């Protein structure tokens, strides 16, 4: 099986390739990667930090996915960035890889035991 990080990278790669595929391949691949990817990644984060072990974690993940697309695009447009495929693919990569990193990183021992001298 693939590790969580590799799966995250795989989703982003699928979106990158899918975004330049002809229709209807583009729509199918990118809608799954663009909405499913961040939902899965945020869901993992929720499962880890909120100790939410049932499927409701994916619903929280989906809400965070929608919020990220909405707020993220707002911020990009506010700073004057024009809509383009590379821009939205970058945002998607951040929305998938960021939460995956948060969900899979090791907790540092000194954070619990105190920082070593």
């Amino acid at each position, binding site marked *: 099986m693939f590790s969580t990080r590799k799966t995250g990278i795989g989703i982003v790669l699928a*979106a990158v390739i899918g*975004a330049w595929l002809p*229709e209807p391949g*583009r*729509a199918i691949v*990118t*809608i799954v990667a*663009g*909405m499913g990817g961040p939902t899965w990644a945020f869901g993992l984060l*929720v499962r880890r*930090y*909120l*100790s939410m072990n*049932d*499927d*409701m974690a994916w*619903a*929280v993940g*989906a*809400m*965070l996915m*929608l*919020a990220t*697309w*909405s*707020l*993220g*695009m*707002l911020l990009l*447009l*506010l700073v004057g*960035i*024009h*809509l*383009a*495929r590379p*821009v*939205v*693919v970058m*945002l*998607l990569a951040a929305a998938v890889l960021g939460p995956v990193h948060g969900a899979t990183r090791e907790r540092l021992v000194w954070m619990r035991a105190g920082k070593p001298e």
Partner: protein
Amino acid sequence: MERARVPPSVFAPRLRRGLRRPAVLAIVGSIGLGIGLVVLAYHEASLGQTGLRHYHIFWAGMWLVFAPLIWLVIRTDLAIRGRLAVVSLLGLAAYFPRFVRAPSMPLMYDELGHWEATERLFRTSKLFQPNDVVKMASYFPGLHTLTVGLRELTGLSTVRTGTVLVVCFHLLTLLGIFQIARKVTHDDRMAGIAAAVYAVSPSFPFFDGMYAYESFAIPLMVWSIAAAVSAIAERGTTRRAWMVISGVIGLTCVITHHLTSYVLVVVLGILALCQFFSKRHRHVAGEGPGDIALLAGGLGGVAVCWAVALHAPVITYLGVFPQQGLATLRQLVTKATGGGQVVSGGAAAQERTALRPLFGGSRLPHYERLISFAIQPALFVAFAIGLWKGRKTRGGAFWTVALLGLAYFISLPMVLTPGGSPGAHRTWTYSYIGLAVVVAMGIGALTKGSGKRHRALRWIAILGVCSVLMGNYASAVNDSERFPGPFVFGSDGRNMPTELVDLTKWFVQTEGRGRVVLSDLRTYAAFGSYAEAKDPVSFPGWEVFFPVTPPRPQIVAELRDAGIQFVVVDDRLATEPPERGTYFSSFEPGVEEPLPEASVSKFDSISWLRAIRHTEHYTVYQVIGG
């Protein structure tokens, strides 16, 4: 002799083995047949039937879809995954008629405005562009930024992307209600029932099924509350994480919709207060409600800053509802106490506060109307039982949803007046969140056991919830909105014929976008969205359209000052009264309906107008020198 302790009856233990194959087949068959009947009803309606046959087919289909799903949430001892799947299916079932109504084009007035805003944002990448169809939409672009991001990625059209998003909003709203109810009741079964009750609420199937900012704001509000309610039972990192989630989702709500974000702030404030009093009264250990109050204050501050920074005319826009509500309340009190005349601002205001007959001129079947009255006492009884059951054991979250639910019953008398009715209908989207949770506690308590009486009560509850669906459709979705059919002048849903859409496309090709167009409200919606035509807001259009003679020179001068370049006339102004009661806005003077023939024919004899396009019903005039 010591009495043996009888263990509490385990509810329907055989169900723990899961559903039997015949039951699964019956459910799948019923839902499949129901979907087929709903589609058939829409097909029948699109043929222009004048009878009520399509209504009967529609309701047969809806009952066949909803009854088994409600049976599942009420009766079976499903695992959490199965329960969530049923709740998701309820979300899809609630959205299905709205999808079939217009699967490939924006239809309703608000939808047209938001579709135009998204199209323009996609084309220009510029935020806060003026939107003359839904004026507030330009200040709250949360839905539009979400759509353009996904549209750019997927290559789908705005309508297709919007459809996918509205499906998500429907599922997530019900799952959010499930989460709130689960935290309040600590019972997955009651949480499922609460989601089912919200799925049959008045606004959820149609109004919140539109591609409009409110449809996105509702799941955001529900989940922001759900996260705050979830935080109450937690401590430390988990509590902080829930608060962060509530804040991020609440922030998205602030940039998405004005009213919903203000209601969210108020609900979070009430939650903090109720939690404070509940904790003090019950001497419960744990963290205080300070962080929830801080969250409410923070979101409130951001909402105010957002509106002030963008100069959004929120107070002017939303102020109309409380004004009319108060006038209505005065009217009702005066009537109840046998008082005399109502003191109101003006003739129009008085007219709007006068009591109105419910379903006046409605084309809905009698049984729908009857049920819309019958469900109110039934809901009240279930609400009262839920309130009674939870009064001692529940904390601040319970009292918050109880207050929210109570607001529904308080708003009911407002429906009796034309002025108060739109405001009351708007509040139901929010008050039903609380109502659904408390009613679910009532239904859950009544149907919990395994005896004969409880089994009978379960069937009554299934019938009851399906009846609530029917009654709420009657009170919130009129004939024109619900079904396709012949053109209805001044309606929302049957005023966008192909003839008009083609005319706007011709207009864009020959005259370009962004021209100033004077027309009646519904015709303008098509020009405003498809041709991005500007609305001469300050100009009173009725001064040109209502008289039977050409307008006075003073009006012509005003028209030129307003920069009006085109006038579009629909000849049905003289044959049909507007279904929604107004030609231009609620400020227009009262007038004979429909307008006299001469009001429409006079445009051909006006010297400063030149007809540049005639279709079967529409004429486009260019203002000479305009």
